[in-house]
C-alpha cells in the first residue's frame, strides 16, 4: 500500500544499538484546506512499535503534528550484529506497514 520504511540499525560502542527509521507517509493534519476550500481530512500515523528479535523495545504514538515522511531515532541495549529489528506502524485510516532490518 505504501512505500517501504527505511530502517538503519547500527551497533555502537558500549553495546548500544542505534536505530533510525524513515517512514513514508503524508501525515495530513486535518487543518489544511484544498483549492476548493474543503478541509483535507486528517491522515497520519498513530502508533508505532519496534521490536528487537521479537522483544518490544519501543512503542510510540504520533499526532498529526509530526512532519511528513516522519523520521524517528532511538537506541537500545542488548543488540548484536545480525539481529533483526522490526518496526510497524498503523495510521488513523487503518493503513499499516511492517518492515525489518538487520543490525550492522
Amino acid at each position: 500500500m505504501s512505500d517501504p520504511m527505511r530502517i538503519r540499525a547500527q551497533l555502537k560502542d558500549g553495546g548500544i544499538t542505534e536505530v533510525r527509521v524513515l517512514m513514508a507517509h503524508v501525515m495530513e493534519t486535518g487543518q489544511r484546506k484544498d483549492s476548493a476550500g474543503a478541509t483535507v481530512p486528517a491522515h497520519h500515523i498513530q502508533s508505532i512499535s519496534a521490536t528487537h528479535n521479537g522483544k518490544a523495545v519501543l512503542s510510540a504514538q504520533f499526532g498529526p503534528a509530526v512532519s511528513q515522511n516522519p523520521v524517528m531515532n532511538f537506541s537500545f541495549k542488548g543488540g548484536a550484529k545480525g539481529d533483526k529489528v522490526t518496526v510497524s506502524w498503523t495510521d488513523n485510516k487503518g493503513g499499516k506497514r511492517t518492515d525489518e532490518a538487520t543490525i550492522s
Partner: protein
Amino acid sequence: MNLQRRTTLKTGASFALIAAAVSAGVLPTSAFAQWNKNAFDAKTLNDVVKAMGGTTAEKSGDIAITAPDIAENGAVVPIAVASKLANVESIAILVEKNPNALAASFDILAGTEANVGTRVKMGQSSNVHAIVKAGGKYYVATKEVKVTLGGCGG
C-alpha cells in the same frame, strides 16, 4: 501502578509470540498501544499531563531538548529529547502554539535508552516542551524555537 503501562507490557509480550507464529506484514493492530486521543486533543501542557494520567509536571534540569534555536522551515523541525532521570517510562514532545499541543509520545521499555528524536511541524515560533515520566512522576523541560517563514534567517 500505571494500568495502561501494564497493558502495554502485556500486549508487548503477546506481540512477541504472534510475531514468531505469523510472518511479518500481517500483524494484528491489537499489538499496538491504544492511541491516547484525549492527550492528542489537549491544548495546553497541563491538559496533556492530565490526559496522560498525571497531575502536574515538575521542572527538571536533567532533560535535554536538542532543537534548533531558529528553524527556517516550520514544516520540518528536528527535535530530540534525552533524559538522565532514572526509570524513564515515557517521553512526550509538545509544541505549545500548535492547534493541539502534543506532537508525539514514546514509551521507553526496558533496555531502551531515554533518548529519542523525530521531526515535527510548527505553525509559528513557540516553546517546545518535553514531558518525561520517570518513576511515576512527570517532569518537564522547555526550549524556545523561532520559526522564520521568510527564509532570511532573521
